């Protein structure tokens, strides 16, 4: 292969490999210089590419989901006694809840959203094995917002939120297949929020396998060229 051709091939590979990241917003990941400790900055610097890939994957492959600005990063759970660093991802589900979902109690809705989104989020967050293998990483946090069921026209919409904190060992045990989805909530600390109002730590029921994320398709949605979802 000639030198020119090799350069062209390398450029093409580099170009297509970066399609997913290039087309997705980059402000979803907290920049390294905005952390308050050296440990967090080191994690952020070492895994910036993995976090941008995580962001781009959610952006393209879960198009009904939104990640807010700085929604992904190596955050410390609020009130932690030491500098525990979790890979954290916040997602907002912006679809209209069905009447059946609306009729559930908050804890039941929270369990349903846990079952639906926490396992696939954990899988996405550990797609790059180097992140989970980093000894500086202590756990995972997943924050899920969804619209609080309410009749239309009753004022400004309100979100319900769960913040799920899972230590690294429990998360990896579950992901390896040794842990059971039913008992995963019992290994997590879950905080609930009604709009801005904290509901404190909540107890979820047993979770279940939910393949919605893997099977749901937005009608007529077209992936951008070069993007592959798996």
């Amino acid at each position: 292969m000639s030198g020119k051709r090799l350069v062209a091939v390398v450029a093409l590979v580099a170009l297509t490999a970066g399609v997913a990241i290039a087309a997705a917003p980059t402000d979803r990941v907290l920049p390294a210089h905005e952390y308050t400790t050296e440990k967090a900055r080191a994690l952020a610097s070492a895994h910036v590419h993995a976090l941008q890939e995580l962001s781009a994957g959610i952006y393209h492959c879960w198009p009904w989901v939104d990640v807010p600005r700085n929604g992904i990063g190596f955050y410390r759970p609020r009130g932690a006694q030491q500098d525990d660093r979790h890979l954290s991802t916040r997602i907002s589900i912006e679809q209209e809840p069905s009447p059946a979902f609306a009729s559930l109690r908050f804890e039941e809705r929270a369990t349903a959203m846990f079952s639906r989104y926490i396992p696939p989020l954990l899988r996405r967050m550990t797609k790059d094995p180097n992140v989970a293998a980093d000894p500086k990483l202590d756990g995972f946090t997943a924050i899920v917002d969804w619209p609080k069921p309410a009749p239309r026209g009753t004022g400004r919409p309100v979100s319900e939120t769960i913040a799920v904190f899972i230590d690294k060992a429990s998360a990896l045990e579950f992901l390896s297949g040794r842990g059971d989805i039913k008992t995963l909530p019992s290994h997590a600390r879950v905080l609930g929020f009604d709009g801005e109002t904290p509901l404190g730590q909540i107890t979820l029921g047993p979770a279940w396998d939910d393949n919605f994320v893997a099977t749901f398709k937005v009608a007529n949605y077209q992936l951008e060229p070069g993007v592959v979802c798996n």
Partner: protein
Amino acid sequence: MRSVRGKLLLLSAVLIATAGCATSEEWNTWYTHRTHFASYEHLGFSVRNTEGSSPKVTRKDIQLARDEGWWGKAITVSQEQMLER
């Protein structure tokens, strides 16, 4: 556009009218079908359909629909209430 809005309003009214307390049957229905969402109709606002072509939705269309604030910006907990930098 007006007729689409009208249909959505009608759909919402029907959904609200049929919503009520959860019965075990409703819970079983939700659990079995696991369809959390009633519809994704709002996307139609950003889809530009032309005669003779099938409608396509891109990620940018979805972002535009979101930015247009179909639901308005929701009241939600700030990240700082849960996480520290």
